[in-house]
């Protein structure tokens, strides 16, 4: 897959977002898979995008190599404690 631009840092599946608004993303599946400088760490803010080009802001909560767990920000949801 070739991305012409990098509209977001990671791709996510909205159907994998849990009640705590956390979703697992894979760096290898995302727009920045070929970017060696991309090294998200817990606490980092980034953007995630899905197949419908819906973009959400989020914060990294956990990282395990290629796998990154991001808590997405949803307008109107007051509490997003994991």
């Amino acid at each position, binding site marked *: 897959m070739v991305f012409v631009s990098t509209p977001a840092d990671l791709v996510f*599946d*909205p159907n994998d*977002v*849990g009640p705590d608004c956390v979703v697992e993303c894979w760096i290898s599946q995302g727009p920045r898979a070929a970017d060696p400088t991309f090294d998200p760490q817990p606490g980092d803010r980034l953007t995630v995008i899905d197949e419908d080009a819906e973009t959400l802001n989020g914060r990294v909560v956990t990282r395990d190599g290629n796998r990154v767990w991001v808590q997405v920000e*949803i307008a109107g*949801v007051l509490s997003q404690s994991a």
Partner: protein
Amino acid sequence: MTKSVVVRDAGVPETLVVLRMGSNTLSDNALGQACERAYAAMGLHAFSVFEIPHHDYAELARLEPILITRPKVLEASGPELVAAGFALLPTGRFPHWSVVVSEPTADQFARVRSHFHGPIDNPTWTGRSV
């Protein structure tokens, strides 16, 4: 390597309706990526859907707040998916389910996609973006 799949004690009710958020999330690309992640976690090629409790979108939005960010959704009948040969596993926390495909191929994706109706308007969509 052996994988353990944790499932909830839940049968497929007659009226189970499952939902896939988004209008393009059943594309070959999206399903291929979902199957890749599921295989790494469970050793099964699968993708995620949500049960609509009693067909009440507001209740689903309360359980899964991400729903309010999606203008469109796709719906399928749980029993119809099972009758068509797709295993439906109650994985994760209610109302999450996994739809299992035998192999992550374009043919299988087209077959499972044919059971989803829509895209239809999401009545809980807030119309707001972050």
